[in-house]
Protein backbone atom coordinates (compact mmCIF):
# COMPACT_ATOMS: atom_id res chain seq x y z
CA UNK A 1 0.00 0.00 0.00
CA UNK A 2 1.46 3.35 -1.00
CA UNK A 3 2.00 5.88 1.81
CA UNK A 4 3.43 8.60 -0.46
CA UNK A 5 1.99 9.25 -3.88
CA UNK A 6 3.67 11.79 -6.14
CA UNK A 7 2.14 12.71 -9.51
CA UNK A 8 3.80 14.96 -12.11
CA UNK A 9 5.66 16.96 -9.48
CA UNK A 10 7.52 19.99 -10.82
CA UNK A 11 9.53 22.56 -8.91
CA UNK A 12 10.95 25.67 -10.54
CA UNK A 13 13.21 28.18 -8.91
CA UNK A 14 13.63 31.60 -10.52
CA UNK A 15 15.92 30.49 -13.32
CA UNK A 16 16.13 26.73 -12.81
CA UNK A 17 13.84 23.72 -13.02
CA UNK A 18 14.88 21.61 -10.02
CA UNK A 19 12.26 18.86 -10.49
CA UNK A 20 10.52 18.05 -13.72
CA UNK A 21 7.35 15.97 -13.91
CA UNK A 22 8.34 13.43 -11.24
CA UNK A 23 5.82 10.64 -10.52
CA UNK A 24 6.55 8.14 -7.77
CA UNK A 25 4.85 5.82 -5.28
CA UNK A 26 6.48 4.88 -1.97
CA UNK A 27 5.04 1.96 -0.02
CA UNK A 28 4.33 1.80 3.70
CA UNK A 29 7.16 0.22 5.72
CA UNK A 30 9.63 0.62 2.88
CA UNK A 31 13.21 1.91 3.15
CA UNK A 32 13.24 3.90 -0.04
CA UNK A 33 16.36 5.47 -1.52
CA UNK A 34 16.67 8.65 -3.57
CA UNK A 35 19.89 8.53 -5.52
CA UNK A 36 21.58 11.03 -7.78
CA UNK A 37 24.64 13.16 -8.22
CA UNK A 38 24.85 16.68 -6.75
CA UNK A 39 22.06 18.91 -8.07
CA UNK A 40 19.92 15.96 -9.17
CA UNK A 41 16.94 17.22 -7.16
CA UNK A 42 17.03 14.82 -4.18
CA UNK A 43 17.03 17.51 -1.49
CA UNK A 44 14.42 19.57 -3.35
CA UNK A 45 12.12 16.53 -3.43
CA UNK A 46 12.66 15.87 0.29
CA UNK A 47 12.02 19.55 1.11
CA UNK A 48 8.69 19.47 -0.73
CA UNK A 49 7.67 16.23 1.00
CA UNK A 50 8.63 17.73 4.38
CA UNK A 51 6.59 20.88 3.66
CA UNK A 52 9.70 23.06 3.68
CA UNK A 53 9.32 24.15 0.09
CA UNK A 54 6.28 24.68 -2.12
CA UNK A 55 5.76 22.72 -5.32
CA UNK A 56 5.23 24.57 -8.59
CA UNK A 57 2.79 21.99 -10.00
CA UNK A 58 1.71 18.38 -9.64
CA UNK A 59 0.22 16.60 -6.66
CA UNK A 60 1.61 14.98 -3.53
CA UNK A 61 -0.47 12.87 -1.15
CA UNK A 62 1.06 11.61 2.10
CA UNK A 63 -0.84 8.99 4.10
CA UNK A 64 -4.04 10.11 2.37
CA UNK A 65 -3.46 13.81 3.14
CA UNK A 66 -2.94 16.41 0.42
CA UNK A 67 0.32 18.29 0.94
CA UNK A 68 -1.25 21.72 0.49
CA UNK A 69 -4.65 21.29 2.12
CA UNK A 70 -3.64 19.09 5.06
CA UNK A 71 -0.14 20.37 5.86
CA UNK A 72 -0.75 20.46 9.62
CA UNK A 73 -1.97 16.85 9.67
CA UNK A 74 1.08 15.72 7.69
CA UNK A 75 3.40 17.52 10.15
CA UNK A 76 2.06 15.26 12.92
CA UNK A 77 3.21 12.07 11.17
CA UNK A 78 6.52 13.02 9.54
CA UNK A 79 9.99 13.86 10.79
CA UNK A 80 13.16 14.91 9.07
CA UNK A 81 16.86 14.65 9.79
CA UNK A 82 18.34 17.22 7.40
CA UNK A 83 21.72 17.24 5.69
CA UNK A 84 22.83 19.93 8.14
CA UNK A 85 22.44 18.23 11.53
CA UNK A 86 20.18 21.10 12.69
CA UNK A 87 20.26 20.58 16.45
CA UNK A 88 20.38 23.22 19.20
CA UNK A 89 24.11 23.76 19.56
CA UNK A 90 24.23 25.31 23.03
CA UNK A 91 21.90 22.74 24.52
CA UNK A 92 23.20 19.46 25.92
CA UNK A 93 22.30 16.15 24.29
CA UNK A 94 19.65 15.49 26.97
CA UNK A 95 18.22 19.01 26.64
CA UNK A 96 17.98 18.56 22.86
CA UNK A 97 16.05 15.32 23.33
CA UNK A 98 13.73 16.96 25.87
CA UNK A 99 13.22 20.02 23.68
CA UNK A 100 12.14 17.99 20.65
CA UNK A 101 10.03 15.66 22.82
CA UNK A 102 8.16 18.68 24.21
CA UNK A 103 7.30 19.89 20.69
CA UNK A 104 5.28 16.71 20.22
CA UNK A 105 4.13 16.70 23.88
CA UNK A 106 6.01 13.44 24.34
CA UNK A 107 8.41 14.38 27.12
CA UNK A 108 8.27 10.99 28.63
CA UNK A 109 11.44 9.75 30.30
CA UNK A 110 10.77 6.23 29.02
CA UNK A 111 10.93 7.31 25.36
CA UNK A 112 14.00 9.47 25.98
CA UNK A 113 15.84 6.71 27.86
CA UNK A 114 14.98 4.25 25.09
CA UNK A 115 16.53 6.61 22.53
CA UNK A 116 19.60 7.20 24.69
CA UNK A 117 20.16 3.43 24.78
CA UNK A 118 19.34 2.75 21.14
CA UNK A 119 21.61 5.52 19.89
CA UNK A 120 24.28 4.92 22.53
CA UNK A 121 24.18 8.53 23.74
CA UNK A 122 24.67 7.92 27.47
CA UNK A 123 28.37 8.85 27.42
CA UNK A 124 27.67 12.30 25.91
CA UNK A 125 24.38 13.10 27.60
CA UNK A 126 25.56 16.22 29.44
CA UNK A 127 27.77 17.44 26.62
CA UNK A 128 26.73 20.49 24.60
CA UNK A 129 25.72 19.52 21.05
CA UNK A 130 28.32 21.84 19.50
CA UNK A 131 31.13 19.88 21.15
CA UNK A 132 30.03 16.49 19.75
CA UNK A 133 31.87 14.63 17.00
CA UNK A 134 30.25 14.42 13.55
CA UNK A 135 29.07 10.87 14.23
CA UNK A 136 27.37 11.74 17.51
CA UNK A 137 25.78 14.86 15.97
CA UNK A 138 24.21 12.68 13.27
CA UNK A 139 23.00 10.17 15.84
CA UNK A 140 21.46 12.94 17.91
CA UNK A 141 19.90 14.47 14.80
CA UNK A 142 18.22 11.16 13.92
CA UNK A 143 17.29 10.46 17.54
CA UNK A 144 15.43 13.79 17.88
CA UNK A 145 13.73 13.10 14.55
CA UNK A 146 12.21 9.82 15.72
CA UNK A 147 11.27 11.02 19.20
CA UNK A 148 7.71 11.59 17.96
CA UNK A 149 7.57 8.01 16.62
CA UNK A 150 6.81 9.31 13.10
CA UNK A 151 5.09 7.22 10.46
CA UNK A 152 7.48 8.57 7.83
CA UNK A 153 11.08 9.56 8.39
CA UNK A 154 13.15 11.55 5.89
CA UNK A 155 16.90 11.16 6.16
CA UNK A 156 18.76 13.60 3.92
CA UNK A 157 22.35 12.42 3.42
CA UNK A 158 22.49 10.89 6.91
CA UNK A 159 26.09 9.70 6.70
CA UNK A 160 27.59 12.70 4.89
CA UNK A 161 31.10 13.39 6.14
CA UNK A 162 31.27 10.42 8.50
CA UNK A 163 34.14 7.96 8.75
CA UNK A 164 33.60 4.34 7.77
CA UNK A 165 32.99 3.13 11.34
CA UNK A 166 30.44 5.81 12.18
CA UNK A 167 28.74 5.17 8.84
CA UNK A 168 28.40 1.43 9.53
CA UNK A 169 27.03 2.15 13.02
CA UNK A 170 24.43 4.48 11.56
CA UNK A 171 23.44 1.88 8.99
CA UNK A 172 22.62 -0.52 11.83
CA UNK A 173 20.49 2.13 13.51
CA UNK A 174 18.64 2.91 10.26
CA UNK A 175 17.98 -0.80 9.62
CA UNK A 176 16.50 -1.12 13.12
CA UNK A 177 14.29 1.93 12.57
CA UNK A 178 12.90 0.55 9.34
CA UNK A 179 11.03 -2.14 11.25
CA UNK A 180 8.57 0.44 12.54
CA UNK A 181 8.85 3.41 10.17
CA UNK A 182 8.74 4.18 6.46
CA UNK A 183 12.11 5.73 5.66
CA UNK A 184 13.02 7.88 2.68
CA UNK A 185 16.75 8.27 2.47
CA UNK A 186 18.84 10.38 0.11
CA UNK A 187 22.46 9.66 -0.53
CA UNK A 188 25.06 9.80 -3.22
CA UNK A 189 26.91 6.84 -1.76
CA UNK A 190 25.90 3.89 -3.98
CA UNK A 191 27.15 1.38 -1.42
CA UNK A 192 24.88 2.89 1.20
CA UNK A 193 21.78 2.73 -0.98
CA UNK A 194 22.64 -0.84 -2.02
CA UNK A 195 23.04 -1.92 1.59
CA UNK A 196 19.99 -0.25 3.04
CA UNK A 197 17.25 0.33 0.52
CA UNK A 198 14.62 -2.05 -0.77
CA UNK A 199 13.70 0.22 -3.69
CA UNK A 200 15.50 3.13 -5.26
CA UNK A 201 14.58 6.14 -7.41
CA UNK A 202 17.41 7.52 -9.51
CA UNK A 203 17.20 11.23 -10.26
CA UNK A 204 19.23 13.16 -12.79
CA UNK A 205 18.90 16.89 -13.48
CA UNK A 206 15.51 16.97 -11.78
CA UNK A 207 14.09 14.07 -13.79
CA UNK A 208 13.22 10.60 -12.58
CA UNK A 209 15.43 8.20 -14.55
CA UNK A 210 14.52 4.84 -13.02
CA UNK A 211 12.62 3.32 -10.08
CA UNK A 212 12.94 -0.24 -8.82
CA UNK A 213 14.84 -2.61 -6.58
CA UNK A 214 18.63 -2.83 -6.97
CA UNK A 215 18.22 -6.17 -8.75
CA UNK A 216 15.55 -4.81 -11.12
CA UNK A 217 17.74 -1.83 -12.01
CA UNK A 218 20.76 -4.08 -12.67
CA UNK A 219 18.67 -6.37 -14.84
CA UNK A 220 17.07 -3.53 -16.77
CA UNK A 221 20.46 -2.04 -17.66
CA UNK A 222 22.25 -5.37 -18.15
CA UNK A 223 24.98 -4.27 -15.77
CA UNK A 224 26.86 -6.56 -13.40
CA UNK A 225 27.13 -4.06 -10.57
CA UNK A 226 24.83 -1.36 -9.24
CA UNK A 227 27.54 1.23 -9.89
CA UNK A 228 27.70 0.25 -13.57
CA UNK A 229 23.90 0.38 -13.79
CA UNK A 230 23.85 3.82 -12.19
CA UNK A 231 26.51 5.21 -14.53
CA UNK A 232 24.78 3.69 -17.55
CA UNK A 233 21.43 5.23 -16.59
CA UNK A 234 22.95 8.65 -16.01
CA UNK A 235 24.91 8.52 -19.29
CA UNK A 236 21.74 7.60 -21.18
CA UNK A 237 20.03 10.53 -19.48
CA UNK A 238 22.84 12.85 -20.60
CA UNK A 239 22.55 11.70 -24.24
CA UNK A 240 18.76 12.19 -24.37
Amino acid at each position, binding site marked *: MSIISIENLTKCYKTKKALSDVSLQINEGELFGLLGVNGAGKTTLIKILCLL*SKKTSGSVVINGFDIERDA*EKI*KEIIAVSPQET*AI*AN*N*LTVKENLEFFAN*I*YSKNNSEIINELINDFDLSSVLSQKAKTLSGGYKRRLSIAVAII*SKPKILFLDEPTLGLDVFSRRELWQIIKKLQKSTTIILTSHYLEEIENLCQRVAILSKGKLVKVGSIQEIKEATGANTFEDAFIKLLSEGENE
Partner: protein
Amino acid sequence: MNKILNFTKRNLKEILREPVICIFCLAFPIIMLSLFQIINNYTGGNTPMFEMKSLLPAIIMFSYSFVMLALAQIVSKDRQTFFLKRLYSTPMRPYHFILGYFFVGIIIGTMQTFTCIICGIIISLIAKTVFVSFTGIILMVLSQLPVLLICVFLGILFGILFSDKSAPGVCSLFINVAGILGGCWMPIEAMGKFELICRLLPFYPSVYIGRVATASLNSFGEVYQFDSVAKLGTIPIMIFLLVSAVLSIVFFKRSMTSDT
Protein backbone atom coordinates in the same frame (compact mmCIF):
# COMPACT_ATOMS: atom_id res chain seq x y z
CA MET B 1 1.27 27.47 25.36
CA ASN B 2 3.58 24.51 26.11
CA LYS B 3 5.24 24.82 22.71
CA ILE B 4 5.85 28.55 23.25
CA LEU B 5 7.32 27.93 26.71
CA ASN B 6 9.45 25.08 25.40
CA PHE B 7 10.85 27.25 22.60
CA THR B 8 11.33 30.25 24.96
CA LYS B 9 13.29 28.04 27.38
CA ARG B 10 15.50 26.77 24.58
CA ASN B 11 16.13 30.29 23.23
CA LEU B 12 16.97 31.65 26.66
CA LYS B 13 19.48 28.86 27.32
CA GLU B 14 20.97 29.33 23.88
CA ILE B 15 21.49 33.08 24.46
CA LEU B 16 22.65 32.93 28.07
CA ARG B 17 25.25 30.29 27.18
CA GLU B 18 26.91 32.66 24.70
CA PRO B 19 29.37 34.64 26.85
CA VAL B 20 29.74 37.47 24.32
CA ILE B 21 26.00 38.11 24.27
CA CYS B 22 25.88 38.10 28.08
CA ILE B 23 28.71 40.62 28.22
CA PHE B 24 26.97 42.93 25.77
CA CYS B 25 23.52 42.58 27.30
CA LEU B 26 24.33 42.67 31.01
CA ALA B 27 27.91 43.76 31.66
CA PHE B 28 28.12 46.58 29.10
CA PRO B 29 25.25 48.69 30.57
CA ILE B 30 26.83 48.35 34.04
CA ILE B 31 30.20 49.48 32.69
CA MET B 32 28.63 52.49 30.96
CA LEU B 33 26.61 53.49 34.00
CA SER B 34 29.72 53.28 36.20
CA LEU B 35 31.94 55.05 33.69
CA PHE B 36 29.65 58.06 33.29
CA GLN B 37 29.30 58.31 37.06
CA ILE B 38 33.08 58.37 37.42
CA ILE B 39 33.29 61.10 34.75
CA ASN B 40 30.56 63.04 36.55
CA ASN B 41 32.43 62.68 39.81
CA TYR B 42 35.72 63.93 38.31
CA THR B 43 33.98 66.91 36.69
CA GLY B 44 32.68 67.97 40.08
CA GLY B 45 29.13 66.80 39.40
CA ASN B 46 28.61 69.63 36.93
CA THR B 47 27.25 67.51 34.10
CA PRO B 48 23.49 67.18 34.64
CA MET B 49 23.32 64.66 31.78
CA PHE B 50 25.49 62.25 33.81
CA GLU B 51 23.43 62.49 36.96
CA MET B 52 21.80 59.20 37.85
CA LYS B 53 18.24 60.39 37.25
CA SER B 54 19.20 61.51 33.76
CA LEU B 55 21.53 58.68 32.92
CA LEU B 56 19.43 55.74 34.07
CA PRO B 57 16.62 56.02 31.45
CA ALA B 58 19.23 56.65 28.75
CA ILE B 59 21.35 53.60 29.61
CA ILE B 60 18.27 51.39 29.97
CA MET B 61 16.98 52.51 26.55
CA PHE B 62 20.45 52.03 25.06
CA SER B 63 20.85 48.56 26.61
CA TYR B 64 17.66 47.41 24.90
CA SER B 65 19.41 47.78 21.55
CA PHE B 66 21.61 44.86 22.66
CA VAL B 67 18.46 42.75 23.06
CA MET B 68 17.95 43.37 19.37
CA LEU B 69 21.53 42.22 18.69
CA ALA B 70 21.06 39.04 20.75
CA LEU B 71 17.79 38.18 19.03
CA ALA B 72 19.08 38.97 15.55
CA GLN B 73 22.04 36.67 16.20
CA ILE B 74 20.04 33.72 17.49
CA VAL B 75 17.38 33.97 14.76
CA SER B 76 19.95 34.28 11.95
CA LYS B 77 22.02 31.41 13.41
CA ASP B 78 18.91 29.24 13.71
CA ARG B 79 18.20 29.95 10.05
CA GLN B 80 21.78 29.40 8.94
CA THR B 81 22.15 26.06 10.73
CA PHE B 82 18.83 24.82 9.29
CA PHE B 83 17.49 24.49 12.84
CA LEU B 84 14.49 26.72 12.11
CA LYS B 85 13.75 24.95 8.83
CA ARG B 86 13.76 21.65 10.68
CA LEU B 87 11.30 23.03 13.22
CA TYR B 88 9.08 24.32 10.42
CA SER B 89 8.36 20.69 9.53
CA THR B 90 7.09 20.01 13.07
CA PRO B 91 3.60 20.88 14.37
CA MET B 92 4.89 24.28 15.60
CA ARG B 93 2.91 27.24 14.20
CA PRO B 94 4.27 30.69 13.23
CA TYR B 95 3.03 32.28 16.47
CA HIS B 96 4.87 29.67 18.55
CA PHE B 97 8.14 30.79 16.96
CA ILE B 98 7.48 34.54 17.13
CA LEU B 99 6.31 34.44 20.75
CA GLY B 100 9.18 32.10 21.67
CA TYR B 101 11.68 34.69 20.49
CA PHE B 102 9.55 37.61 21.75
CA PHE B 103 9.41 36.37 25.35
CA VAL B 104 13.16 35.80 25.44
CA GLY B 105 13.66 39.43 24.37
CA ILE B 106 11.31 40.61 27.11
CA ILE B 107 13.07 38.44 29.73
CA ILE B 108 16.53 39.74 28.78
CA GLY B 109 15.24 43.31 28.64
CA THR B 110 13.75 42.90 32.14
CA MET B 111 17.04 41.45 33.41
CA GLN B 112 18.85 44.47 31.95
CA THR B 113 16.40 46.88 33.57
CA PHE B 114 16.85 45.31 37.00
CA THR B 115 20.61 45.13 36.58
CA CYS B 116 20.79 48.83 35.69
CA ILE B 117 18.51 49.87 38.56
CA ILE B 118 20.41 47.80 41.14
CA CYS B 119 23.70 49.09 39.78
CA GLY B 120 22.31 52.66 39.93
CA ILE B 121 21.30 52.21 43.58
CA ILE B 122 24.77 50.84 44.49
CA ILE B 123 26.54 53.70 42.66
CA SER B 124 24.29 56.29 44.34
CA LEU B 125 25.07 54.77 47.73
CA ILE B 126 28.82 54.81 47.03
CA ALA B 127 28.76 58.36 45.60
CA LYS B 128 26.35 59.46 48.35
CA THR B 129 24.02 61.04 45.80
CA VAL B 130 20.23 61.06 45.70
CA PHE B 131 18.69 58.18 43.77
CA VAL B 132 15.42 58.32 41.87
CA SER B 133 12.17 57.86 43.80
CA PHE B 134 10.35 54.53 43.66
CA THR B 135 7.44 56.06 41.72
CA GLY B 136 9.89 57.67 39.31
CA ILE B 137 11.55 54.30 38.69
CA ILE B 138 8.24 52.55 37.99
CA LEU B 139 7.13 55.30 35.59
CA MET B 140 10.52 55.31 33.88
CA VAL B 141 10.52 51.50 33.37
CA LEU B 142 7.02 51.67 31.88
CA SER B 143 8.03 54.55 29.62
CA GLN B 144 10.89 52.49 28.16
CA LEU B 145 8.73 49.44 27.45
CA PRO B 146 7.74 50.51 23.89
CA VAL B 147 11.42 50.82 22.90
CA LEU B 148 12.08 47.35 24.32
CA LEU B 149 9.25 46.00 22.17
CA ILE B 150 10.62 47.83 19.10
CA CYS B 151 14.06 46.30 19.72
CA VAL B 152 12.58 42.81 20.16
CA PHE B 153 10.61 43.00 16.90
CA LEU B 154 13.56 44.51 15.01
CA GLY B 155 15.86 41.76 16.37
CA ILE B 156 13.52 39.10 14.97
CA LEU B 157 13.21 41.01 11.68
CA PHE B 158 16.97 41.50 11.21
CA GLY B 159 17.58 37.84 12.09
CA ILE B 160 15.16 36.77 9.36
CA LEU B 161 16.45 39.22 6.75
CA PHE B 162 20.21 38.98 7.31
CA SER B 163 22.78 36.20 7.68
CA ASP B 164 24.52 35.52 10.99
CA LYS B 165 27.56 37.40 9.59
CA SER B 166 25.75 40.55 8.47
CA ALA B 167 23.03 40.79 11.17
CA PRO B 168 25.49 41.95 13.91
CA GLY B 169 26.80 44.65 11.54
CA VAL B 170 23.32 46.00 10.86
CA CYS B 171 22.54 45.86 14.58
CA SER B 172 25.71 47.73 15.56
CA LEU B 173 24.68 50.55 13.21
CA PHE B 174 21.33 50.64 14.95
CA ILE B 175 23.00 50.56 18.40
CA ASN B 176 25.13 53.59 17.49
CA VAL B 177 22.12 55.47 16.16
CA ALA B 178 20.21 54.67 19.39
CA GLY B 179 23.11 55.91 21.53
CA ILE B 180 23.92 59.07 19.61
CA LEU B 181 20.51 60.19 18.37
CA GLY B 182 18.87 59.10 21.60
CA GLY B 183 20.71 61.84 23.44
CA CYS B 184 21.97 59.29 25.94
CA TRP B 185 25.20 61.14 26.65
CA MET B 186 24.90 64.19 24.38
CA PRO B 187 22.67 67.20 25.03
CA ILE B 188 20.46 66.99 21.94
CA GLU B 189 18.43 69.95 23.25
CA ALA B 190 21.37 72.23 22.57
CA MET B 191 21.81 71.15 18.96
CA GLY B 192 19.21 73.36 17.31
CA LYS B 193 17.53 71.84 14.26
CA PHE B 194 19.32 68.51 14.80
CA GLU B 195 16.96 67.94 17.69
CA LEU B 196 14.05 67.90 15.24
CA ILE B 197 15.60 64.95 13.37
CA CYS B 198 16.14 63.09 16.64
CA ARG B 199 12.52 63.66 17.58
CA LEU B 200 11.41 61.75 14.49
CA LEU B 201 13.08 58.58 15.77
CA PRO B 202 11.84 56.67 18.84
CA PHE B 203 15.08 56.86 20.89
CA TYR B 204 15.27 60.52 21.94
CA PRO B 205 11.56 60.85 22.77
CA SER B 206 11.77 57.64 24.80
CA VAL B 207 14.78 58.86 26.81
CA TYR B 208 13.10 62.26 27.20
CA ILE B 209 9.91 60.71 28.58
CA GLY B 210 12.04 58.48 30.84
CA ARG B 211 13.78 61.58 32.19
CA VAL B 212 10.45 63.29 32.74
CA ALA B 213 9.50 60.24 34.86
CA THR B 214 12.69 60.18 36.93
CA ALA B 215 12.65 63.97 37.32
CA SER B 216 8.99 64.22 38.23
CA LEU B 217 9.56 64.36 41.96
CA ASN B 218 12.62 66.58 42.13
CA SER B 219 14.21 69.72 40.77
CA PHE B 220 15.29 68.05 37.53
CA GLY B 221 11.68 68.46 36.47
CA GLU B 222 12.47 72.04 35.53
CA VAL B 223 14.46 70.79 32.55
CA TYR B 224 12.42 67.75 31.55
CA GLN B 225 8.68 68.24 31.70
CA PHE B 226 5.77 66.49 30.08
CA ASP B 227 5.74 69.16 27.39
CA SER B 228 5.18 69.03 23.62
CA VAL B 229 8.49 67.14 23.10
CA ALA B 230 7.27 64.33 25.33
CA LYS B 231 3.70 64.36 24.02
CA LEU B 232 4.59 64.44 20.32
CA GLY B 233 7.42 61.98 20.98
CA THR B 234 4.92 59.22 21.60
CA ILE B 235 3.89 59.38 17.90
CA PRO B 236 7.21 58.15 16.36
CA ILE B 237 7.51 55.59 19.17
CA MET B 238 4.09 54.12 18.36
CA ILE B 239 4.69 54.25 14.60
CA PHE B 240 8.04 52.42 14.95
CA LEU B 241 6.45 49.87 17.28
CA LEU B 242 3.60 49.14 14.90
CA VAL B 243 5.77 48.97 11.79
CA SER B 244 8.45 46.76 13.40
CA ALA B 245 5.81 44.37 14.80
CA VAL B 246 3.99 44.02 11.47
CA LEU B 247 7.19 43.61 9.44
CA SER B 248 8.69 41.00 11.76
CA ILE B 249 5.50 38.90 11.72
CA VAL B 250 5.05 39.18 7.94
CA PHE B 251 8.67 38.34 7.11
CA PHE B 252 8.83 35.51 9.64
CA LYS B 253 5.72 33.87 8.19
CA ARG B 254 7.13 34.30 4.69
CA SER B 255 10.42 32.67 5.69
CA MET B 256 8.58 29.50 6.69
CA THR B 257 7.73 28.66 3.09
CA SER B 258 10.49 30.46 1.22
CA ASP B 259 13.02 28.41 -0.75
CA THR B 260 16.08 30.12 0.73
